[in-house]
């Protein structure tokens, strides 16, 4: 977190995640970066937090802050955690960097009673316009990385994500979008408006009673 962000308070998506978390709960933050979210949750929600982070710098920064973070890879290391080990498992802005988002989503809801997933929305109107007018891949929001540099190998839209949850039988308890000014709005369904104007979305998920495969993949 930059000094300016620190002064201005936490990142808006972190703030949104913090609002969803019950005080004193057990939480695992996957792809926790430098631990900014875990620190916020420990400070404001007295959360018993753990983190997994792939980059050495991120892990070192987190552990220096006194946070419990291990160096690891979400795609291989979640398998070592027992069922329902956490009240919440958080995947913040990391989903597009994962090779097997479906597998990881199911793992989140195996080891956590709830999952909180935030995604950058590739369906934002600026991306659509960029692609339409320039015919080139837009850089992920907030970065200038070109398509061959970005770790976001699987960009998706809000609608894509909602439909994947349906396919996997994952219940969306709460869906919220953040626009470019950091304004927060709830939305319903696949969020036609949210999918156009939301820069990012934060979802609170739980395993649906219907179970996975309750609905057919919808590729429209």
């Amino acid at each position, binding site marked *: 977190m930059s000094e300016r962000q620190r002064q201005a308070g936490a990142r808006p998506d972190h703030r949104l995640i913090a609002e969803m978390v019950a005080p004193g709960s057990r939480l695992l933050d996957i792809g926790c970066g430098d631990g900014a979210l875990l620190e916020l949750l420990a400070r404001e929600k007295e959360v018993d937090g753990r983190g997994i982070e792939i980059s*050495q710098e991120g892990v070192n920064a987190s552990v220096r802050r*006194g*946070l*419990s973070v*291990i160096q690891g890879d979400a795609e291989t290391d979640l398998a*070592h*955690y027992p069922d329902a080990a956490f009240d919440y498992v958080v995947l913040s802005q990391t989903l597009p960097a994962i090779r097997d988002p479906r597998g990881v989503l199911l793992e989140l809801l195996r080891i956590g009673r709830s999952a909180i997933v935030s995604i950058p929305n590739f369906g934002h109107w600026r991306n659509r316009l960029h692609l339409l007018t320039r015919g080139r891949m837009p850089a992920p929001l907030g970065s200038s990385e070109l398509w061959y540099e970005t770790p976001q190998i699987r960009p998706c839209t809000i609608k894509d994500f909602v439909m994947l949850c349906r396919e996997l039988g994952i219940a969306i308890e709460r869906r919220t979008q953040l626009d470019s000014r950091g304004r927060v709005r709830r939305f319903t369904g696949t969020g036609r408006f949210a999918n156009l104007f939301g820069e990012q979305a934060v979802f609170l998920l739980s395993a649906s009673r219907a179970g996975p495969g309750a609905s057919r993949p919808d590729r429209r």
Partner: protein
Amino acid sequence: MIAMPESTAAAVHEGAGLSVELGGEAPLELDCGVSLGPFTLAYQTYGTLNRDRSNAVLLCHALTGDQFVRGPHPLTGRAGWWELMVGPGKPFDTDRYFVICSNALGGCMGTTGPKEINPATGRPWGLDFPVITIRDMVKAQAMLLDHLGIEQLFCVSGGSMGGMQALQWVASFPERCYTALPIACAAKHSAQNIALNEVGRQAIMADPDWRAGRYQEHGVNPVGGLAVARMAAHITYLSESALQRKFGRALQDRSNVTYGFDADFQVESYLRHQGQSFVERFDANSYLYITRAIDYFDLAAEYDGVLANAFRGVDTRFCVISFTSDWLYPTAENRAIVRALAAVAANVSFVEVVSDKGHDAFLLDEPDMFETLRGFLSGAAARRGFGGP
């Protein structure tokens, strides 16, 4: 930072050259079935125990270490093995923590071991000394803590064999370990590592001066064998790239090879020096016993072969550290510990420090390791309610 309150109890235990006789009333029941007692444990302390007795840190030394974490060492006059890590303002800050280190059972710096006198015979123990284990070492340390009146350690830490002891501490006495910081270690000794230890032991036993372990009574010392054991082991503490960087093929005080078996190469000269200086401070039989204890270490074996069971229900906060170039206790071994801890949703941090210095990196100036330790310890100290930021 809150100033450490003075403790009258601590003053008694502070200082150099301390030792205590333990197991007089209830002997130490060793894993091999022998009851040992009374026995002597030699130890050092640094810093001051606070009034709550909540700031004690137990540091466990490695194979050839001893209780002299800080120097000057009484035999060599040199710095202690963790001088960089322990002291005022250091990661194990003696202005905040009360640091204890005892000479391991079977050692040769004052703790009962094979070179001490067996009260039953009046002669040095030699190979009559019972074979000890990492768990025996830990039980002996627990008796020392009882003697010092310390119920719970704020932290138990160490590298290599010291890390094994830290793991064993949590498994055996979970409620006595608020945090554990095992560094560059493994939950079991691998076949390769047993093999390397066996080379060292055979070098000692092949020395004619070893005399079936009774060299003291014959007034000799198997220094040749012990030096070779140390030389072989020392290579395993380094890394290929560190050896290359430090020595390459550079020659020692000469411009050409001599077509003989003198130490032509700098690396040979360096190893010979390592071997020779080691024999001045270490006992050959202790080397046999302590390497054996390490070989026997397999924490999961005590728990139906499932390492995670050793940590089930444990509240201890862990920080595991490994080094990229350590091939003796590689990151994979350390990660196995982390995975076992994750499997019981234990509170664990894990950092792999990038270093080309091999296993010995844990003894050296590694800023990433220092920063990790500082952060972990400060965070835990604040939770424990003392000296927090």
